[in-house]
């Protein structure tokens, strides 16, 4: 135990001596939160909307007004019948075109299902799906507003029918959604890099050899290396949560203890991965590249942080099952946004525990295996 402590204190002192690494571990998470929080804003406002109202009725004007009264759409053009819709989007004069057919008000009055068409410029798929979500919500609201006027009719299908493929809640501020993903990504990156670099630095400088000749056991070395970075990473988590609360009003709704447990288990896996990276790297630059690659890319792209897993190709979806950040994200979103505990997410938690055990086991096996 005192040997573990000696290693931990030494690594902490080295980290403190190196302002750059401390900055990297504590400052970069906040910086990234700012960057992603403001730049990765999925909310879309002031979409240029062209309207082709062939119905010219009170109902159609109401529908158009409900679109324009939201902050999401601005009227770009009112199109006459027979207008060239394609050129309009090609010239980027409108991002979306709402087409209301002649039969719209007649259908509504007759209690039939009224169909309107929304044409979206899909070149920016992300924006398009968000806009689709807004439109769907507006249509729902419009349906609701029609209901009292048609009282007496029995429960029926909505009169204005949208079947959007992507469901999106217009109240959702995307920063709320981003923070958990950001924690997952930043912790993975900093934990993997800091341990990998600290071990490889010892290899490069020859101090590792010195340690191996002492009576320090591999387990003690691993534990001693992990403790300080575990502490620093937990501090980084606290910094992110505090910044998220101050800047984006993201409040942790669930129990902090559960959040702490999830973060802890996730971190142990990440630190183990860092040790593994160090065992295959011969230089700090190599460790940095390997570490950044295998920690950052999956945590960003395959975790559901930025791209929804369900919209990935099947093969890629299969790969995401191997990415710890995926499970971490599910649990942490549950805890932070929904106010849930770990309990409903026990299969995800189980995976994280298994991952942590596997990583530590592999790291231990690699480090105890001396040159044959």
């Amino acid at each position, binding site marked *: 135990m*005192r*040997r573990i*402590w*000696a*290693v931990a*204190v*030494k690594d902490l*002192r*080295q980290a403190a*001596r*190196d302002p750059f690494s401390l900055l990297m571990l504590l400052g970069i998470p906040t910086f990234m939160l700012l960057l992603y929080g403001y730049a990765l804003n999925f909310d879309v406002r002031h979409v240029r909307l062209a309207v082709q109202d062939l119905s010219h009725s009170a109902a159609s004007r109401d529908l158009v007004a409900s679109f324009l009264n939201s902050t999401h759409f601005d009227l770009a053009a009112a199109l006459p019948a027979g207008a060239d819709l394609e050129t309009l989007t090609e010239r980027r004069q409108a991002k979306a075109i709402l087409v209301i057919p002649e039969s719209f008000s007649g259908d509504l009055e007759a209690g039939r299902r009224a169909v309107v068409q929304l044409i979206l410029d899909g070149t920016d798929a992300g924006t398009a799906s968000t806009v689709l979500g807004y439109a769907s919500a507006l249509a729902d609201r419009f349906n609701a507003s029609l209901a009292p006027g048609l009282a007496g009719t029995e429960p029926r299908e909505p009169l204005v029918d949208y079947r959007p493929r992507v469901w999106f809640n217009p109240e959702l501020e995307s920063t709320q959604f981003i923070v958990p993903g950001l924690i997952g990504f930043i912790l993975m990156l900093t934990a993997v890099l800091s341990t990998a670099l600290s071990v490889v630095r010892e290899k490069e*400088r*020859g*101090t590792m*050899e*010195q*340690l*191996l*000749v*002492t*009576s*320090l*056991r591999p387990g003690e070395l691993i534990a001693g290396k992990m403790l300080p970075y575990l502490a620093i990473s937990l501090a980084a988590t606290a910094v992110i949560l505090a910044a998220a609360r101050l800047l984006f009003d993201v409040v942790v709704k669930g129990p902090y203890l559960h959040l702490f447990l999830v973060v802890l288990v996730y971190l142990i896996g990440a630190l183990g991965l860092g040790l593994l990276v160090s065992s295959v790297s011969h230089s700090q630059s190599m460790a940095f590249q390997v570490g950044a690659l295998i920690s950052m890319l999956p945590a960003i792209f395959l975790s559901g942080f930025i791209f929804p897993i369900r919209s990935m190709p099947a093969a890629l979806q299969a790969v995401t099952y191997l990415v710890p950040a995926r499970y971490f994200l599910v649990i942490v979103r549950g805890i932070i946004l929904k106010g849930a505990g770990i309990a409903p997410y026990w299969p995800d938690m189980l995976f994280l525990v298994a991952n942590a055990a596997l990583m530590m086991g592999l790291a231990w096996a690699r480090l105890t295996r*001396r*040159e*044959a």
Partner: protein
Amino acid sequence: MGPAIRIQGLTRRFGSFTAVDDVSFEVQPGEVFGLLGSNGAGKSTVIRMLCGLMRPTAGEARVLGVDVAARPEEVKRGLGYMTQRFSLYEDLTVRQNLTFFGGVYGLRGPALRERAGWAVAMAGLEGREDALARGLPGGWRQRLALACSVLHRPRLLLLDEPTGGVDPISRRRFWELIERMAAEGVTILVTTHSLDEAEHCGRIALMHAGRVVALGSVAELKEVFAGRAVLEVSCPRWLEAMRRLETLEGVGEVSPFGDRLHVVVADPGRARGRIEAALAASGNVPMAIERIVPSLEDVFIHYVETAGGRGGET
């Protein structure tokens, strides 16, 4: 009590390259034993096998009576190790380095403070306890490294090229420390390619191309020249002279020393005349031919050449 180190048939191969080839020797407790050889002769590989960093391909190494390959952890407890590379934490202070290595060896509290204080005094680092190791001059860092490696009072100290890149005064001071420790009963195995340093060792093993080509005290090794003498020849064109003398009758090894030649001969009186005549015949009249006391370098060259066949790197 048996030998501190006992090596038998120790061999280490890297693929088809044999770095250490069937090496055997024993080192007695309290002895200062030198492994002498050029770079790539296999000295460091022997040390790395002795401290359990590397497994032998064949043969056995017993340190303090324990088989290193079988129970490396037990060996490590009684061992101090210091390499040519400065193996301290340069971004920690003198005191932090000592605290760390002491902690790693399981020392703490008063015991740690006592040993750290002793180490600071031994290394002559008083007043520098809070200086970063990085900022210390080479000789000081080296003494700190030595101090760190003996905090746990090892009975055996393995030093791999400990004085590389250090000024002569620091080097002398370092050897004083080594000799003091040996006097206290610590066994010391040191590798060096410096022949001057080998003179500090009680016994030395000369290594060449992975093999021990000679073993004994410096005086014993020099006895190979018993009954023979070494002549130092200075002449205008030494390379030409070397080729000529190598074929001359009654002349043993010829080796260049700077712009002079060392020539091993059985009968210095007669050889002198012969050499003079042979060189004069080709217009390469020697300026001087002197009989000299053979140095360890002569001994080394003699053994390497007679070991023959396999060339070292240098």
